[in-house]
């Protein structure tokens, strides 16, 4: 679907020129210098130095705006781990499940390098290669760095990235630097060992297993030391934190301050996944995850401190594609070996140039629409859910949506604040009413849902639930449409045509993802 044959890949515009002009406006979609925003890297040169913008502008995890356009892939070369987390069960592997620590097959560094070339040739907007497990990349340093070495030779345009628990990070910072890995994610769930003891039963360090507070103390010291060492070297750091209600939810505000003061670029607070069928400690002991509004409230409260990432899909350690999709099944080892791989840098660049044109027209449209809100003083805020396949467009049928992206609208404009995963509503017959209820629960905090198309029955049920089904903006830009909708909403509230009422909470999908086919 996204392949580019050499014949159609005419570079009409030079990529460098485009990238420059992207850098000249607020590329992350946060117009008008509103400071720290939701985008996970809030922007262009106004908000960050050009060299940092250079690093994040096409990294889907570090830039919210980029994640609508650019894809990433993980290669599962790092199976070993050196700590135990209560939200992880290493025995669990299911191809229909999407969450960290899970893969369907392990790869050798050589297989991984081949896979990267195969994916890069098939998905020209794939710009980032990450190693995220399924164990810890730095508990498998030979495999991890061998993979980076091979890829930096064969596909030098691809950004390298890794995600670690941080236990051995201080030992590897110089090697990370040497391989030009300029994005590192550390999962930091606590800076207080007493809280850590409730999350980590043990760590394996210097040939010993340390349990409880003793283990957690070693872990937090090593994580913070590693973070400082990375930021001293100018490597961009994202911190992932799992929000575990009643364990570390309030404490994550302290974590946020601790990592900000050590130079972290971005903080990603994610909801705990703890379905009992995963067999994790938290899954079995009934530890619940947060609701959508609990998560949002914590993210909002940390936002004054630093960039918050809200577009994380908590993907698998072998995920391939845009963040909201997973194309890993197209790239199993068997299929890769049978593939005729033609890695063509110039056609990749030409395709990415086209992506940049789309991206700029989207931002320009949003900026123009934003002017209609000038002078608005209302303090009304609403959330809207959007069915999209990517490219920043409202281009998905309600019944085909696997997730909804959620935008917050206010007099300041639109802001991406999260996404809600849902099972497909349209699965051809069975349990439709049930799955429609589930979709409504997932977006119950939203005032409206924007779709490319929607059937009559779900439309009526959404209205009954107080959610406005909106198909008038089909195939148009998300944020431009959302601002236009909000402007009209405010006008109707002012004229008394409608009354503004606040919405309730929504639930975060926990169980296994069920694909349609």
């Amino acid at each position, binding site marked *: 679907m996204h392949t580019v044959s050499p014949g159609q890949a005419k570079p009409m515009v030079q990529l460098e020129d485009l990238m420059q002009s992207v850098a000249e406006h607020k590329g992350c979609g946060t117009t008008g210098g509103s400071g720290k925003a939701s985008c996970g890297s809030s922007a262009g040169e106004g908000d960050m130095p050009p060299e940092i913008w250079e690093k994040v502008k096409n990294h889907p995890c570090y830039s919210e705006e980029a994640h609508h356009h650019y894809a990433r892939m993980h290669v599962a070369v790092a*199976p*070993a*781990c*050196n700590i*135990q987390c209560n939200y992880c069960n*290493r*025995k669990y592997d299911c191809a229909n499940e999407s969450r960290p620590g899970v893969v369907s097959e*392990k790869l050798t560094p050589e297989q991984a390098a081949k896979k990267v070339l195969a994916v890069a040739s098939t998905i020209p907007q794939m710009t980032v290669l990450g190693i995220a497990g*399924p*164990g810890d990349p730095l*508990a*498998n340093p030979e495999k991890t760095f061998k993979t980076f070495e091979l890829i930096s030779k064969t596909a030098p345009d691809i950004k390298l990235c890794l995600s670690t628990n941080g236990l051995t990070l201080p030992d590897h910072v110089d090697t990370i630097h040497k391989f030009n890995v300029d994005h590192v994610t550390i999962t930091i769930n606590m800076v207080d060992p007493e809280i850590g003891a409730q999350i980590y039963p043990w760590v*394996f360090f210097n*040939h*010993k*297993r340390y349990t409880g507070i003793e283990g957690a103390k070693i872990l937090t010291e090593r994580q913070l030391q590693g973070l400082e060492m990375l930021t001293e070297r100018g490597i961009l750091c994202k911190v992932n934190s799992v929000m575990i209600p009643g364990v570390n939810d309030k404490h994550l505000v302290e974590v946020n301050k601790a990592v900000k003061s050590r130079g972290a670029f971005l903080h990603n607070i994610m909801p705990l996944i703890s379905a009992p069928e995963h067999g994790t400690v938290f899954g079995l002991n009934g530890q619940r995850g947060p609701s959508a509004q609990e998560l949002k409230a914590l993210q909002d409260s940390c936002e004054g401190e630093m960039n918050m990432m809200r577009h994380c899909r908590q993907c698998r350690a072998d995920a391939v594609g845009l963040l909201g999709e997973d194309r890993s099944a197209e790239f199993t080892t068997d299929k890769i070996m049978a593939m005729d791989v033609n890695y063509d840098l110039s056609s990749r660049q030409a395709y990415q140039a086209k992506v940049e044109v789309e991206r700029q027209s989207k931002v320009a449209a949003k900026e123009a629409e934003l002017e209609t809100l000038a002078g608005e003083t209302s303090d009304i805020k609403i959330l809207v859910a959007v069915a999209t396949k990517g490219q920043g467009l409202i281009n998905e049928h309600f019944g085909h949506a696997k997730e909804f992206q959620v935008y917050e609208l206010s007099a300041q404009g639109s802001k991406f604040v999260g996404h809600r995963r849902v099972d497909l509503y349209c699965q051809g017959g069975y349990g439709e009413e049930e799955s429609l209820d589930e979709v409504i629960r997932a977006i119950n905090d939203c005032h409206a849902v924007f779709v490319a198309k929607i059937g009559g029955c779900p439309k009526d049920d959404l209205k009954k639930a107080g959610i406005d089904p909106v198909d008038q903006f089909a195939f148009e830009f998300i944020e431009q449409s959302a601002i236009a909708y909000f402007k009209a909403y405010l006008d109707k509230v002012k004229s008394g045509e409608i009354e503004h009422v606040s919405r309730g909470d929504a639930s975060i999908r926990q169980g296994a993802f069920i694909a349609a086919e």
Partner: protein
Amino acid sequence: MPYKIVASQCTSCTACEAECPNEAISEAGGTFVIDPDKCTECLGHFDMPQCVAVCPIDDTCIIDTKLPRYQAAE
């Protein structure tokens, strides 16, 4: 001689292979096995058997009771 890996429990994560001071652990048939002739229970190397300490699944690296315990050389 004495440690063995319970194949049905092994996730094949490779963590033990890298930690074994005797290079006694290798992959066989999708999971990992300990060569009883090479295993020293980590005596003389570490305070605790490394495979046991690093394994993510409890009761997977266990004493093989069918074999005599390792005796350190005199």
